């Protein structure tokens, strides 16, 4: 049952192995990693399903940074943050970045299992939107300032010729920028890109 795999990333060996022990006893397949890098190297996004229990504070790459990476790469795995020193600003930041849930240590088994169960079979519209928006924002953050200008004009529906005149650059350059933008945003088409820009724009007032 591959869809029941729970991935655990925590630098504390005892916590990592304890979670593995408990979740296995509860009937889950568990894969545990001591660092964010180890997870990124070993996770196969194509297998799909499962969820990720992620420690917020870790040396080198933190849990939040790992989530950014997942967003950029477009790996859609629900992330449940676990932290020993949860603060409200940290929880808000994590949720905005697309976290599925945020649980404080020491963990309560019931709460954790419930959250894992929900994550395994999510059909939560709100979460999906949040995840989508977080992913798009993470990707948009990779755009250069010029690319962002071009992206905004594309979103208004202007043709490339108008955009080139407006920005005082050549038609070819605009086409080049557009190709880069589509690649970075992982858009399937121009209309997909426009949809993405609308999602990002709607989220602006929140930020």
């Amino acid at each position, binding site marked *: 049952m591959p869809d029941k795999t729970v991935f655990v990333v925590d630098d504390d060996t005892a916590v990592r192995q304890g979670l593995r022990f408990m*979740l296995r006893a509860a009937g889950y397949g568990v894969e545990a990693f001591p660092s964010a890098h180890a997870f990124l190297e070993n996770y196969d996004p194509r297998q799909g399903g499962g969820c990720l229990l992620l420690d917020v504070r870790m040396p080198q790459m933190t849990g939040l940074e790992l989530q950014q990476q997942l967003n950029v790469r477009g790996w859609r795995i629900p992330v449940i943050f676990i932290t*020993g020193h949860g603060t409200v600003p940290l929880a808000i930041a994590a949720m905005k970045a697309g976290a599925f849930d945020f649980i404080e*240590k020491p963990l309560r088994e019931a709460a954790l299992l419930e959250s894992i169960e929900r994550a395994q079979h999510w059909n939560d519209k709100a979460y999906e939107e949040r995840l989508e928006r977080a992913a798009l924002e993470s990707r948009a953050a990779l755009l250069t300032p010029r690319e962002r200008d071009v992206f905004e004009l594309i979103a208004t529906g202007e043709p490339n010729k108008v955009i080139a005149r407006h920005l005082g650059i050549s038609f070819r350059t605009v086409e080049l920028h557009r190709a880069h933008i589509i690649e970075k945003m992982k858009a399937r088409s121009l209309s997909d890109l426009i949809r993405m820009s609308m999602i990002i724009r709607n989220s602006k007032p929140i930020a």
Partner: protein
Amino acid sequence: MTTEEVAQHIRRTPEQTALFGSRISNGWRTMMLSIGYVALYLAFDRLSFIGALHGIGITPWSPTAGLAMVLLIIKGLRYSPLILAGELFSGGMLPTVSPPLMPIFLGSVVVTAGYMSVVTVLRHLRFEADLRRSSDTVLLLIATIIGSGLVASGFVGSYAVSGVVPWSAFAEAGFHYWIGDAIGIVVLLPPLLLLYTRIKQRAAPVQGRGSFHFGEIAVQAASIVLALAVVFSGMGGDHPLGLFYLLFPPLIWIATRHGLPGASWAVLAIQVGLITGLQVQGHTELTLRAFQLFMLALAATGLMLGAVVSERRRLSVALVDSEGLRTAILNTVSDGILTIDACGAIQSINPAVETLFSRPSHRLIGHDLSELIEDAPDLLSGLKLAIHSPASQARCWALDARRPDGTAFPIELSAARFDLLSAQHYALVVRDITFRREAEARDRQHQAELAHVSRVSLAGEMAAGLAHELSQPLTAIIAYTRGCLRLLAGPVPEPALLHEGMAEVVQQAERAGDVLDRLREFVRGGEFRRALIAIKPVIDAAVNLVHSEAMQRDVEIKAKIDPSLPIVLADPVQIEQVLLNLLRNAMDAMEAANTEGRSIIVEAWRPGQYDVEISVADSGPGVAYEMIDTIFEPFVTTKPLGMGMGLSISRAIIEAHGGQLRLARRSRSGAIFIFTLPTAETEAGIDAG
């Protein structure tokens, strides 16, 4: 300088100021003095002009010479023109002859220059006009005899050159002039100097003078008159000087009774009596001069005896005074002062010793030092070891002393050796240092309590980090326990898995217990508990306590500890506290400055034989230049919520351990704080020394 000398000095100073002041402000006084001197000079010259040799003022005695010397000694060389004037007047007004002006002038200059030289030489030899020391009198006599000899040959020589006196008579004339001047000075100068001193010091009683009874004075005066009468009675047979020695007993009597003042007045009286007697009887010039030669010997004897008597009397008074002062000091000081012989038997004590050891003096004198002081035998051998050092060099010991009831108290003892009648003795000064020791203990206690308070607050500041430190094992424990419960409830029992789970639970519970132990140890009571410890476990404990906080704040902490470090004598908790302060300061500084790549390196090494050095280096912004001087002061902080106590308490802790805490680097590549701790061997060395 004795108290008396000090008093003399004080008395003398305003007088001297007045003397110099009068030169300018009181011209009238100078003029009166000048006229008075010249008048007196001429009067003396006239009176003493008896039996003049060759009629040129060579007389059997010259009181004028004494007068001139008095003026020069008291008023100074600037009055020498008056001497010259006196000589010129007297030379020009000789009653019998009128010699040419040339020798008069030349002679006067020679005489004036001669006496100026004598006074200059006297001053150079530190002659004091008050004749307090017998050496002053001796100096005066010698200078007078030599000086007047030179003046005499100069004076007679200048008349011989002018042809007034034939060269054949030079030796005879010079000899007579010499005796005349010498007797004039010896007879007149001492009483006038003493009179002057007495007038100047009239406010203070003159010490060293005997009792002053008019009856005695009258008998003594009568004895002089009687002796003179016998001398001139002719009972001595043919020789006119036959009975001269009769003048000695009264003079010696007076000198021994009244010292120099009595002797000098007696000499003057005898001289006046002799001259008067000789004048009345009409002796020959030869007899007159023979008398004067004898008189010179009599005067010198009397004056020297008087001077010695005065000086001895003064010294004995000074001795009594200093003895009184010594006794007063010994009775007043709160330190116990005692002398012991080489075997340790107590010979003398001051009253403080009785109080100090709660024993009456009869239970101290003659008793052994070891009855009072615990380590007295060691002390004695220590004293004997110090035998080759200079006798006056004092040594200091900290010892325990005993009271008769057996109670011990700490003392500080310093000792010096002295030799008395070729036997060794020691003078000991004993001070009760109970209060000082108590104060030191109180200071240490306060410091330890302050450190404790600051440690508790430090622990509070670290609560977030410690909570995380506890939540990790608790999370693991819950996870393993839940897992085990599920396994137990499951259809297939899996003992191996259960065992693994429970073993982990125990291990993690112990881990949590360790965290609590460390914290409890850290915030324990405020005593100062020094022990021989290795430095590595202390550093490890401190780094562990801040580990999770460092993680949260993205700080990497590395420890590089020399494995061969010696043990140190220290309170591990207080040292850990210092390390925690430094570590947390470093983290705060790097966080406040938003430093990239935050790291702290803790190093411990041994720079030399005596110290272990521990450094805490961060990669933060360093210490601002304007903070350097005040960073260790209390209530100085750069943190918005800081008390500013951490570094000040840390420095106090390190200094209480005999080490130093300093800022070793403050540059932009980060701050380095270094503290030193003396090694255990060093500490032992200090105690032994």
